[in-house]
């Protein structure tokens, strides 16, 4: 089975503020405020380049950050599921 491709809203429809190592996100489409911990903001930034699956997101994030996990793709997939539940990403 092919891995799911995820998409996110365009960066200009999100407003980010960094506070104490957390990222506050205002999501204009829903009017909701979210508190995000790494790597969630990095995942959203990676999806700005277009839809991707977990493995591709690991590659995009890996260009700038070290991901400390035994199975990075599984870790990112778990965060994607949380972001999907929060309405910040969706499957295409």
């Amino acid at each position, binding site marked *: 089975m092919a891995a799911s491709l995820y998409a996110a809203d365009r960066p200009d429809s999100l407003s980010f503020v960094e*506070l104490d190592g957390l990222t506050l996100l205002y999501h204009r489409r829903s009017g909701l405020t979210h508190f995000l911990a790494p790597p969630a903001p990095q995942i959203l930034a990676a999806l700005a380049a277009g839809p991707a699956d977990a493995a591709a997101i690991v590659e995009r994030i890996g260009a700038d950050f070290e991901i400390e996990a035994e199975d990075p793709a599984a870790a990112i997939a778990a965060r994607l599921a949380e972001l999907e539940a929060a309405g910040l990403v969706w499957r295409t």
Partner: protein
Amino acid sequence: MNHVFRLQVGPVAFRIGSEWRGPVAALRRLYAGYPEPGRVCDFTVRLEAQRPWRRWLRPSVAIRGDYVLPDAAPLPLALGLIAAEMGMNLQMALGQKRFLLLHAASVERDGRALLMTGHSGAGKSTLGALLGERGWRFMGDEFALLDLERGLLHPFPRAASLKNESLGLFGKVDPERLGPILEGTPKGIVRHLRPNAEAVARMGEPARPVLILFPRFGRDLEPAVREVGAAEAFMRLTQASTNYVALGERGFDSLARLVGSVPARAIDYADCAQAEALADSLWRAA
């Protein structure tokens, strides 16, 4: 409406109408010396008979206005002041769009404001009123109004609502400033305190917030101070705001600016002298 009272509190103008003389007479006495609004009022509060015939038989006040909660419980007529206060709260909570509304007390010194917020019973109202009698300018004990563009706090110095044991702390104020003792209110015994002349005269002067306190009162608590991170302060203030969601991104931006630039502390205290000492020492350090 048979009886009408117009009242300016900080930047907000109210028109309070009542079917009875009593609540309006009590408001006139409590708010003696307040300026009358010079323009169209922002909000209307109506104190009406729950049913037309109840105006005469066991009168009961229903609170109405521009914004109405369908299940707001009616109050006996003797609590007309409480009904007016609840009506003003309701109009502000549901209709205020010009400011981010924080359920908080605030006081000012040297042009800088101290903001205090917490759950009901945490002591913010008592602390705000107390500091207002001890060299600080009382800005409000119920709502603090955060300017969405400039980040200034605007006063909302309505009469402070003193409850139960805290009444004993204000024995030395001019009795003219105190309202009637109201028993059997939803919050127990309540007595209103008109802010002092300085607080009323300067109700149009905003101040720059420089310290946020989250007080917590408990008889068995040791006095303590804990640093509150900006993200936690943001979250707690969204809970303390009645119109954060309604303001959308403007609310998000103004609150993020506030917590990003103003330090926040949680304080525990077992009596007001401790709280005052903690507030003073934190204020000097801010």
